[in-house]
């Protein structure tokens, strides 16, 4: 039990360490030198190529994407954070260059509708289960004998055995 706690605490410690580190990394001016392709790709992955459906900017081979990656590099070198870069691209080229619509206005519907639908589904499930289990079931629900669980399965296998062994 203590093991779990220790691990949980350690996770927490790691994550808070990361918050500190992330803040340090994101501080402007940290990227004085040219960013590496991997750093550029990290951001480019969160943008989608508008001229070729369904591919993100990191993976797309077109000229547009190459230019965009270069621009991401410039912005990173200026010390912009990932979020700022995404906002720049959304403002410059439209919201549809983001892999996921921004969380505002009508776009919230992307997230809200499924959540409502799932909750409604759960609600219906609960309601039906409640209604069904409340029905009188006296006719064909004799009390289950205490060892029935193990037996039911074994019985099934034995039945099969009999039906096959003639």
């Amino acid at each position: 039990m203590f093991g779990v706690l220790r691990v949980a605490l350690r996770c927490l410690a790691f994550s808070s360490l990361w918050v500190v580190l992330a803040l340090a990394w994101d501080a402007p001016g940290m990227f004085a030198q040219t960013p590496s392709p991997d750093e550029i790709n990290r951001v480019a992955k969160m943008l989608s190529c508008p001229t070729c459906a369904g591919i993100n900017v990191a993976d797309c081979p077109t000229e547009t994407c190459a230019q965009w990656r270069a621009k991401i590099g410039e912005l990173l070198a200026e010390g912009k954070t990932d979020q700022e870069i995404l906002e720049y691209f959304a403002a410059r080229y439209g919201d549809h260059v983001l892999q996921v619509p921004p969380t505002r206005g009508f776009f919230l519907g992307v997230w809200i509708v499924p959540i409502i639908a799932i909750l409604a589904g759960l609600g219906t499930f609960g309601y039906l289960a409640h209604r069904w289990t409340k029905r009188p079931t006296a006719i064909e629900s004799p009390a289950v004998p205490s060892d029935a669980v193990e037996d039911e399965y074994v019985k099934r296998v034995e039945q099969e055995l009999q039906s096959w062994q003639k």
Partner: protein
Amino acid sequence: MAEVREETPPPPYVAKAHPAGRRLIWLIVVLALLGTLLGLLALGLQPRTSVTLQGKPAPPFAITAINGEFAGQKFSLADLRGHIVVLNIWASWCVECAREATVLEQAWRAYRPRGVWFIGVDYLDTDTAGLAYLKRFDITYPNGPDIGSRIYQAYRATGVPETFFIDRDGIVQHVQIGPIGQTQLDALLDRLLTQGRSQP
């Protein structure tokens, strides 16, 4: 159709069937939902291409020029009312655009004195690449980035290049999909120029 069903009396725990009225309401609700969905998709199938703008008022646009003498100036459709406007949507990565770049620039120089405005809209481009393109083809008419791809969307463009010829009353008279040739461009502009201001 009279049918004999395999009917056993319902066991007591089976709920009574819903009254017909309630069932009908459910049917209507389900059908309405399906209808809405299908209707939406049907709307989505409507052709929404630039060609459908022909003969209709041009959607408003505004750009901030980045090149030459106009750098920093704002241009909008409202400001240019009373002039013939040639709106060209292009991009530096577009091969076809490069084919018409000189044609457009020469026409601009020829028709500028007669009150024709050329406006270039740079679609999905970085400023560096866009400026390099403008410099390469020595383009002098006002060009600016399409912020938020709004002009591209408002004009329902289906790709680049696309060129819209807007008359003095702000009506789209012609939509050119793909690069335009010099003879066609001259003919179009001459026709628009001979049209009187008062004629619709």
